[in-house]
């Protein structure tokens, strides 16, 4: 394992410290917890948005704490859901009296830990709602009862629910628009090289020199299958087809696109991928309202990417294009 770290046990703590030192205008630490919240939290009269999960997906989620997106982010150990007490602290720190929405990626651990936190907050009289993001079409929904995983599409939930909350909307309305995003967002990824959880010390899977993993999860979970590496276009086509098989994309549809790097893949490759995504959408006469290309939901240093497509209606589009000012996503 070759990493630029000090101590495998300290990576989350030191990363959080480094993030606060880098972005003091955006985030502050909830003392004693692995929780970052906006510098001006809690914001009275605004629904608070809390997300989080295992670390190793940076800039998710702390990178999206700021105006127009999240209010708080909870960082678990690497690839491990944060514990309920941590999530509960985040909820308390951002509740401005209008309630708190929890944005959870659909993993058993995340769901259970966030639910336990919600029960704790409930007991304290804080209004809490939750949404569970499950955008990864690599996983068959019908067959496996845990349901789909939440991956990069989560960032669109942050963006759009965050913009909605910023309008002063009620918790139910914010939750509703988040659900609408979830209903209309699909993703799928692939990896050409694995990542190593610092505390584990070795890669969570290994691939032959010419082999890639299709549909792997952002925690290094194995994917749907392995295959010999194909061209960027072929691979992209496979992923986009999986998405559009699940969520038909037709003439006149308008979408947002995210070509997400998993940590070890350089922008050059992401742009080559985006070229094919855009071409496929154009062929389907689907309009692209906005494209994001970069590292939004990583898997440590894994090399690979995911494609996310979000179908927009007028409301989603307006909220997607609304301003945001966070460490990792700024738009006018």
């Amino acid at each position, binding site marked *: 394992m070759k990493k630029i770290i000090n101590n495998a046990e300290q990576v989350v703590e030191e990363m959080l410290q480094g993030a606060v030192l880098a972005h003091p205008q955006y985030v502050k630490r909830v003392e004693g917890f692995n929780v970052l919240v906006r510098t001006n939290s809690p914001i009275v009269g605004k629904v608070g948005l809390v997300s989080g999960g295992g670390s190793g997906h940076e800039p998710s989620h702390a990178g999206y704490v700021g105006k127009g997106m999240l209010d708080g982010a909870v960082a678990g150990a690497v690839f491990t859901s944060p514990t309920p*007490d941590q999530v509960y602290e985040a909820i308390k720190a951002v509740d401005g009296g209008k309630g708190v929405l929890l944005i959870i990626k659909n993993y058993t*651990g995340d769901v259970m830990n966030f639910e336990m936190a919600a029960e704790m907050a409930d007991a304290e009289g804080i209004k809490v709602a939750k949404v569970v993001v499950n955008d990864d079409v690599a996983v068959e929904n019908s067959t496996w009862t*845990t349901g789909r995983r939440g991956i990069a599409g989560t960032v669109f939930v942050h963006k759009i629910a965050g913009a909605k909350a910023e309008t002063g909307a009620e918790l139910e309305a914010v939750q509703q628009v988040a659900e609408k995003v979830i209903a209309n967002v699909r993703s799928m990824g692939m990896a050409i090289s694995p990542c190593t959880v610092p*505390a*584990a010390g070795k890669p*969570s*899977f290994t691939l032959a020199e010419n082999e890639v993993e299709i549909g792997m999860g952002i925690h290094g979970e*194995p994917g749907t299958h392995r295959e010999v590496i194909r061209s960027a276009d072929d691979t992209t086509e496979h992923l986009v087809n999986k998405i559009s098989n699940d969520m038909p994309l037709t003439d006149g549809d308008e979408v947002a696109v995210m070509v997400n790097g998993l940590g070890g893949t350089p922008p050059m490759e992401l742009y080559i991928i985006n070229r094919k995504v855009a071409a496929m959408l154009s062929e389907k006469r689907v309009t692209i309202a906005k494209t994001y290309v970069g590292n939004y939901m990583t898997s440590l240093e894994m090399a690979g990417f995911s494609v996310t497509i979000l179908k927009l209606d007028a409301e989603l589009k307006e909220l997607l294009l609304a301003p945001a000012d966070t460490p990792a996503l700024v738009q006018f």
Partner: protein
Amino acid sequence: MRSLNMAIEALANIIIANKEKLTEIDAAIGDADHGINMARGFEAVRAKVAANTNDDIGAVLKMVGVTLISTVGGASGPLYGTAFMRAALAAQGKKTVDGELAEKMFAAAIAGIKERGKAVRGEKTMLDALEPAYDALTQGLASRKSLAECLEMASSAALAGVEYTKTIIATKGRASYLGERSLGHQDAGATSSYLMLTVLAEIAQNLGREE
């Protein structure tokens, strides 16, 4: 109190000693952190238990449960945490464990796991070690075997359960994303459950010998 602390320590030790093995098992069909998560939790438990002077089994198990919930994370944290909390409730005020209490605690723990995780036997989770183990324990107790013998049977049943997880497709937890690709691999949580049961059996046997 000494033997209570020693029992908790022994549980912690076996998990910590198997940190890498459990992580490797999780790597195959999960996300390579089960051993890390559990070891982190039981390190915390071990530290707390070292300072424990309470001999109420319920109180100590509650401490274990709370500690696991707030340190393990992932899927196993809430599940094992809830299991210990529920066992603690059943053992409130108790200073020794007999067969009846053991059965009650075990049943409560499993009920807690099922409530929290919404899984049943056969979904390739820790339940596939725990439920057969529980069945073996009740059978043993019904045929009036010693607690040590019963726990030995439970532990063997758990091991068989671990082996069984290799033959089924996961429908809960992270491995469920793999569909058929989860076949041939054993479940990490079932393995950690089995390991804890071996320790409990061993402790019961030692205590039996001492008496």
